[in-house]
């Protein structure tokens, strides 16, 4: 018994085959897909290019300066004779400024996020959210001048209770970096709180707690991973911040954790030395790349942590 397709089936098949117009649409779809794919690859390529351009000068640098010197000392005079390459001077300052910034941004950002999420009326929310976004988009140089011309003379130098304060100091820089990352911290933390299912929040309120108890007892733990991720992202923003620190904390690299002193961080060293007149074939010039690599690795690790944390966060509700 042989099988032959019915007339109906043949017509159906004809209709299923792509017409000219459909074929054109398909080709167009291909083109769009390819273009989109290329643009996303560009980001990856740029990332590798940046990382790659850091590597050769860094390798050269470590042929001239030993790991022991770099990680074992606390003096940092790479551009003087005789030079000293102890990264801990920059590390201590980076840690100091970052810590001050985080002390400002985390409690402030969380409080603002709780307020926006649970306390603010729709009206207030409608005005506050865009204001935060404008603040987040402000050029950092504006914050830098605010730190030097206002925060340092009017606040830090007036209110510091423990003796002398340098005009350029880590505290002003840290405070203003904290203010700079505050909007981002707030927005990210609020997004995390907002992604908690509404039914869950209703279930909490149905048990009779106050808003504060819902915030601390349900919203905070439910959004914890998202909140941690927002802290880590703010942290890497603070570590990488150059302009504000350069303007407000000065350029004296020293191993200290005293916020009243002028300091130099990893990022502000790069900003400082990068605009100087280093010969391109000097150890001093290669120092910039070595510090850059170091900074790159730190922020890279922080970002990986935040991605991990966010991924764990997603698993919770799916």
């Amino acid at each position: 018994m042989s099988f032959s397709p019915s007339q109906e089936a043949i017509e159906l098949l004809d209709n299923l085959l792509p017409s000219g117009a459909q074929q054109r649409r398909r080709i167009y779809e291909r083109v769009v897909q390819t273009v989109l794919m290329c643009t996303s690859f560009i980001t990856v390529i740029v990332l590798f290019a940046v990382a790659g351009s850091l590597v050769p000068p860094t390798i050269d640098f470590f042929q001239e300066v030993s790991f022991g010197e770099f990680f074992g000392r606390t003096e940092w005079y790479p551009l003087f004779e005789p030079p000293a390459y102890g990264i801990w001077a920059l590390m201590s300052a980076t840690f100091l400024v970052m810590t001050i910034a985080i002390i400002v941004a985390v409690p402030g950002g969380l409080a603002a996020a709780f307020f926006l999420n649970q306390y603010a009326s729709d009206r207030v929310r409608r005005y506050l959210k865009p204001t935060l976004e404008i603040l987040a988009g402000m050029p950092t140089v504006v914050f830098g001048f605010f730190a030097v011309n206002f925060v340092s003379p009017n606040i830090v130098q007036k209110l510091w209770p423990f003796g002398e304060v340098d005009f350029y100091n880590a505290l002003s820089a840290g405070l203003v970096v904290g203010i700079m990352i505050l909007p981002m911290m707030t927005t990210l933390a609020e997004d995390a709180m907002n992604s908690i299912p509404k039914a869950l929040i209703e279930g909490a309120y149905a048990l009779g707690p106050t808003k504060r108890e819902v915030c601390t007892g349900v919203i905070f733990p439910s959004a914890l991973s998202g909140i941690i991720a927002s802290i880590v992202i703010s942290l890497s923003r603070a570590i990488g911040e150059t302009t504000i620190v350069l303007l407000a904390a000065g350029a004296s690299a020293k191993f200290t954790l005293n916020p009243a002193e002028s300091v130099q961080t990893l990022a502000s060293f790069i900003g400082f030395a990068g605009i100087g007149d280093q010969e391109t074939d000097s150890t001093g010039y290669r120092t910039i790349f070595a510090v850059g690599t170091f900074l790159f690795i730190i922020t890279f690790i922080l970002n990986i942590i935040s991605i991990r944390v966010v991924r764990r966060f997603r698993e919770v509700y799916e």
Partner: protein
Amino acid sequence: MNETTTPTAQSLIASSLSKGDGNIPGVNSGRAAQIVMEARDLSVYYGDFLAVRQATFSIARNEITAFIGPSGCGKSTILRSLNRMNDLIHSARVVGTVLYRGIDLYGPLADPGEVRRRIGMVFQKPNPFPKSIYDNVAFGPRVNEKFTKSELDGVVEDSLRKAALWDEVKDRLKASAFSLSGGQQQRLCIARALAVNPDVLLMDEPCSALDPIATGRIEDLMREIKSEYPIVIVTHNMQQAARVSDMTAFFSVESTGDTNRPTGMLVEYDRTVDMFSHPHDERTLSYVSGRMG
């Protein structure tokens, strides 16, 4: 536009429970003394939209009250206005009176948090917190009272027993609530609601996401606890309403001329046996008989 006058504290307490419409035709006259909650001319707006108009009914001790009616007729809206959950929706506005043991729930004497603690709620979809089983049940007692660790353990065990979940979870109280099945999660939510020792329990389609066995367990549970907690249950399942409830309120929608969104209304409210065998209203009869098959 404010149709309610703000009564004085004295008049609030004084509003007597027997004054209400506890004397429904055909319902034993002793019921009036058992009334715990009363809604009088209760209307709810969302913005300008009148979602439900002028519902009047009462909830008595030892009774399960069922809310039935087509989708969108305002059953959830009315239920949520009984424990001020509507406060969480900014556009919602309540007009009329809800009395709880003689106190106006929307009056100056009532604190929304305290109202919700006394009048508990279970939702359509199980909504446990992303915490352990123990911490889910303990959340309410922790915020509402100071308990020692062993007292809290007792409250948690008690609540889980009442919700018929204890035997299934007693060995894994520290496990995540998300590790439970849907039916278990719903019973956990009931345990969580019972843990704050409420006076009334509101349940919005608590079984709609559950299989018949889990549904049966929750219905048994409702019958067991109704002597302690009067229950109001919203359900689309007529058999369920007939099986568990003592009183039934039938809501429906009516189109008002000016808007195209229909407003919900309470059509009839009576003993369940009467509602299902010989209701007074045509609309109740056709809904009940249509849905019973």
